């Protein structure tokens, strides 16, 4: 059993899927780390819900290679993302920019939380509907139910 532990450990690590192939990687680990960081900000244009870091699409591969070339050429991370945005639009940013057309994305969840909070608050203020006492008829019905319940067994 103990011999299997490394195997399980390896399985845990490989859970983080990425598509970067060894041949694409830069020799300098610091630059490669930067490339990974930039790649995680860029959305694959063919698969839409993946970063180019995760995607196996050929265009994503070529974009990863391009990111690494730009890094070697001395571009900053912002310049590289900017290069992609100039060509594919804000669409390629996986994290939407803060602007008028994306306000709903940023504040939507907060608005819903607020609405829910207000609903709960107004409920609590009223003391809840359950505070209503039973009518005499209901009391009687309850009592008869309880009695029959005790006799049953």
């Amino acid at each position, binding site marked *: 059993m103990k011999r299997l532990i490394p195997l399980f450990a390896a399985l845990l690590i490989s859970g983080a899927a990425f598509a970067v192939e060894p041949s694409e990687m830069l020799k300098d680990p610091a630059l490669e780390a930067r490339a990974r960081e930039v790649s995680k900000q860029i959305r694959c244009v063919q698969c839409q819900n993946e970063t180019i870091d995760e995607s196996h699409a050929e265009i994503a591969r070529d974009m990863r290679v*391009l990111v690494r070339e730009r890094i070697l050429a001395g571009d900053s991370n912002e310049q590289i993302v900017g290069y992609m945005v100039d060509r594919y639009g804000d669409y390629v940013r996986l994290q939407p920019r803060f602007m008028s057309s994306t306000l709903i994305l940023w504040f939507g969840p907060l608005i819903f939380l607020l609405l829910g909070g207000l609903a709960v608050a*107004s409920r609590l203020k009223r003391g809840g509907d359950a505070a209503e006492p039973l009518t005499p008829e209901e009391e009687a019905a309850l009592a008869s139910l309880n009695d029959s319940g005790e006799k049953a067994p």
Partner: protein
Amino acid sequence: MTETVPSSAQSPAPRGKRWPYVLPLVILLALGGIFAKRLLDVENGVDPSLIPTVLLNTPMPSFDLPALPGRGEALKSDDLKGQVFLINFWGSWCIACAAEHAMLLDIAASGDAPIHGVDWRDEPALGLKWLTQRGDPYAKVGQDPQSKTAIAFGVVAAPETFLIDKQGVIRYKQTGPITQEDWHKKIQPLIAQLKK
């Protein structure tokens, strides 16, 4: 149990307090409306997965692509200044390009504007075979094996076609195959206008 039960508790809720019950219905209807609009958009041919072009009316990227071996000269952006032309991204692996090919031959035959081809992510030999077998609509063809030029043009999937004016500015982008309708209603009139 509290003793402070309002006397109105037995009667229906006062009018002012109905909105919490109506609100979810209003939200539901509003969402339904939005979904219905998007679905109808798709029915009417608006593809929500298309990425809007940001390069329209901007200068085309510069490029210098090697020719297919044994077929004409290289495709260089500097050589194309001063002419109105189409630049078409294709590849022998691209099924939609096969569907578009007859249209490209028609356009080439019309003589309205030259089509230059970018053989994208392709084996040069397969690209050449494609042109010999199906006919060759292109004035010049360049190879783009690593998508450098495709990415510079913001290309997502072949075929994509750009119309460039005499100043080298992108005036139109076609995503997917050019149809007869696209050609006659949009591209051909635009070419005539740009050539003036």
